């Protein structure tokens, strides 16, 4: 942390410490928070890949085959793995935080946090299962 003093107006002798740009390395939860914020970049990355895929699909079978070939290059696979891990981190950390924002009351009593989190995970599983079913049923 920087020790350069930043004095308070009218109280020149009060000492105010400036926040260092490295504040997020000071403790583990700050670092986890900044990583969680960073995951948005990788969520955007998947959205861009998806748009790229749609464009290739619109351009015909040849362009689509080329797109698929590019996805299978080692460099892209490595990038994909990193992005997937970040998106997983994104999903799990945000799911775990939902009960903080969502307070559901049934007959005047607050629904316990684990139920809210559980419902999120259940919805995730059902949707993923549905997508997997659609993709794999013709195989």
């Amino acid at each position, binding site marked *: 942390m920087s020790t350069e*003093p930043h004095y308070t107006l009218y109280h020149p002798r*009060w*000492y105010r410490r400036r926040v260092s740009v490295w*504040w997020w390395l000071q403790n583990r*939860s700050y670092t986890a*928070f900044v990583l969680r*914020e960073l995951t948005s970049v990788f969520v955007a990355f998947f959205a861009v890949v998806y748009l790229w895929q749609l464009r290739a699909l619109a351009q015909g079978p040849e362009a689509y085959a080329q797109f698929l070939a590019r996805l299978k290059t080692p460099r892209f696979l490595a990038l994909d793995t990193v992005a997937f891990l970040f998106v997983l981190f994104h999903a799990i950390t945000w799911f775990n935080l939902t009960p*903080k924002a969502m307070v559901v009351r049934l007959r005047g009593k607050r629904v316990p946090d684990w139920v809210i989190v559980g419902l999120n995970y259940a919805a995730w599983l059902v949707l993923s299962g549905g997508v997997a079913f659609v993709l794999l049923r013709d195989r």
Partner: protein
Amino acid sequence: MPSTVALTVTRYRPEEESEPTFQTYEVPFRKDWVILDALNHVKDNLDGSLSFRWSCRMGVCGSCGMKVNGTPKLTCATFLSDYLPGPIRVEPLDYFPVVRDLVVDLTDFMRNLKQVKPWIIRNEEKPLSEGEYLQTPDQVDTYKQFSMCINCMLCYSACPIYGLEPSFIGPAAIALAQRYNMDSRDQGAAERLKILSEHDGIWQCTFVGECTKVCPKHVDPAGAIQQYKLTAATHWVKALLLPGGTR
């Protein structure tokens, strides 16, 4: 079990030095001593010039908040035995100007707190003859958690956003606003919305979540802020879509 433990304390004497330094005191180790007991031992027996704030010694007044080994704590509820073998580092709370040694200035919080109108607002008070405003246990339950705040400022000291953006009205002030918003006797939610949904209100919060972790009273300010974000966003959508606004 050691007979003494080292206490490294921030010293800042504005008439003598331009920035804080550390001073180490060797204090007796006792199983039942909290950090505040050790500080009082220093003040009474070793160095009367050490300045710090305290009052109740039982986690009610919220005066003795300091950073212990880097984490904001109520020093009256933090035992020496949890930090063995030491040394134990005691510093003033972060992000507030240091007046002297471990004493910080809380003017900024006092201003923020007043801004959110933490009192029951009624459009019209009913006459005394109609009796008191009654509440069911369930109605009390909706805001009780937020009413436990003792203004100890640990949440501000844990909030990097408050450090980076001093104009942020901060976790405790918002939790206390929410305490009144959710009170069935209160009718001031619209008045508070103006200040809470401004740039320096809830939207500064990026949900680091540390305020909730350090809160000695389990108030959950992070939860209060996120819940209010949902309320404010719903209000905004309604104002946009419904012809009559949110009246």
